[in-house]
């Protein structure tokens, strides 16, 4: 009789089997059409004329210079936003001060600005007719239609990624552990390095990897400031566009397939960071009550950033 009761209770909090399978079926079909097919199409189109044509497209010097520029851009933009993200998360999560919510909103601002507008503001600052345009021309410094403009636009677009990830995480973890370290005589730097960093490392990796994916893949903002000079100011996404518009479909998809691979690697690292983080948080929850720190564990890293 008790099993019967349990079964009835379970039936009350779930759906009948055919509803379940229908919902799972619709979901899988939808995700197949909208996620799997586009991803598969990239590789299929890239390899349509065989592996040699694919390889030829990737060996091209313009493709190489695009790959190099993309890597350089990400190598500058991601560390800059990493330092900013840690600084912003430290002051926003660890302290109370006036205007904190305004600051948090402003940190999020670049997410909601259209990439095209992001590119345009730098043209208005540094372009030939911009604020600093004449001065820059006098001193023969090129920012727009050159690499510095591409880096700046990328920094703008990827600005909030790491801060956004760290702020809720550090808020949830509270200050107790750091305060204990300080009271025990650790310096601020030691406290950060040995107490805070181990606690936030998975969140940090998560933020860095998404920031990097966006930095390497940004199209709109970079396309406004780059000037599309082949072999000089073309990043990989811009190179894809040029090839595509020249009807060199295989070459375009070959370069695009590298970016798709980057996306897949990003997803794998991101998932691993998520699982590891959840496991560590569960391990904390499983400790006997007196050992649980007062910090509320932050179970999920997933953020709709």
């Amino acid at each position: 009789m008790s099993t019967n009761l349990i079964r009835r209770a379970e039936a009350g909090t779930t759906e009948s089997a055919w509803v379940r399978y229908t919902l799972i079926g619709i979901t899988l079909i939808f995700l197949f059409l909208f996620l799997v097919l586009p991803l598969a199409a990239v590789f299929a189109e890239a390899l349509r004329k065989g592996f040699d044509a694919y390889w030829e497209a990737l060996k091209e010097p313009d493709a190489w210079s695009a790959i190099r520029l993309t890597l350089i851009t990400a190598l500058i933009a991601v560390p800059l936003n990493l330092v900013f993200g840690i600084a912003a998360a430290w002051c926003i999560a660890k302290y109370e001060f006036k205007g904190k919510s305004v600051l948090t909103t402003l940190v999020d601002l670049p997410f909601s600005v259209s990439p095209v507008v992001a590119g345009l503001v730098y043209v208005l600052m540094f372009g030939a007719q911009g604020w600093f345009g004449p001065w820059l021309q006098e001193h023969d410094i090129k920012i727009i239609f050159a690499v510095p403009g591409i880096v700046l636009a990328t920094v703008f677009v990827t600005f909030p990624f790491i801060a956004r990830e760290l702020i809720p995480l550090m808020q949830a973890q509270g200050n107790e552990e750091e305060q204990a370290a300080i009271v025990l005589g650790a310096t601020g730097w030691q406290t950060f390095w040995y107490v805070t960093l181990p606690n936030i490392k998975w969140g940090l990796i998560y933020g860095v990897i998404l920031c990097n994916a966006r930095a390497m893949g940004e199209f709109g903002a970079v396309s406004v400031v780059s000037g599309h000079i082949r072999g000089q100011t073309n990043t990989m996404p811009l190179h894809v566009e040029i090839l595509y518009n020249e009807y060199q479909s295989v070459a375009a998809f070959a370069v695009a397939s590298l970016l798709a691979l980057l996306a897949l690697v990003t997803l794998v690292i991101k998932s691993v960071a998520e699982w590891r983080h959840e496991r560590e948080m569960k391990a904390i929850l499983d400790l006997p009550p007196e050992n649980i720190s007062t910090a509320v564990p932050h179970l999920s890293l997933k953020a709709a950033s």
Partner: protein
Amino acid sequence: MLPRSAAAASAQRRAPARVLPGFNITLGYTLMYLCLIVLIPLSALVFKTFTLTWDQFWAAVTGPRVLASYRLTFGASLIAALVNVVFGLLVAWVLVRYQFFGKKVVDALVDLPFALPTAVAGISLTALLAGNGWVGQYLEPLGIQLAFNPNGIVIALIFIGLPFVVRTVQPVLEDAEKELEEAATCLGASRWQTFSKVIFPSIAPALLTGFAMAFARAIGEYGSVIFIAGNMPMISEITPLIIIGKLEQYDYAGATAVATVMLVISFILLLIINGLQAWQRRHTGALA
């Protein structure tokens, strides 16, 4: 430890909670970096707009092509965000409530639109939906055209916005207490009544937040849309493309004016999203 100047000591008296060092330097760096990268460049846009006369501004932002682009951008973004609400809720529900083979992979794959560069998504969707593509070849004989017209724009925007709703609803569903549903069932509610009267109200704020995020992202989206849109003036030309077009004709004033309109809209949306998130926190806080 902290340097104990008189000023620091008095500051500590006022705020005894600040045991941790580094407040001034991190806040100072955050503000400086924020100003350099975001605020000063954005203010350049606002100042440039103020150099226009009102008539110039009005003419630039209400030209017939520009008006058509607003209609298209907002309409397509709205449809795409609504589709994302329906399917995002479904995906989040299935991922949280049901067990099936390959669930972890599906869960990871949901973030693909965040990780895949928009230009790649754009050319890939175009290749799929064009007349000779994997999907397009079956639809074209039926008279359904999904590429190079507004339909394509909606599809690209659905792709771009999909993770937003899933990722805002998923954690709320995970935290939802089964006890409430059990209570509803014990009190005689059908499963559908339990969903619509107990579960749905608790996830509604998250759903709305996800909708607003997907909508905001869709309005500014450029990379994935321009390949599939066909970009015909008055028909399939989105607002970001109008800005690019004006820039390419060295019409900086016109580009700035339209960009300012977009900036104001995205700022309003950001404030709405923040309000919704605060509401959601209060809502879940009240339940817990």
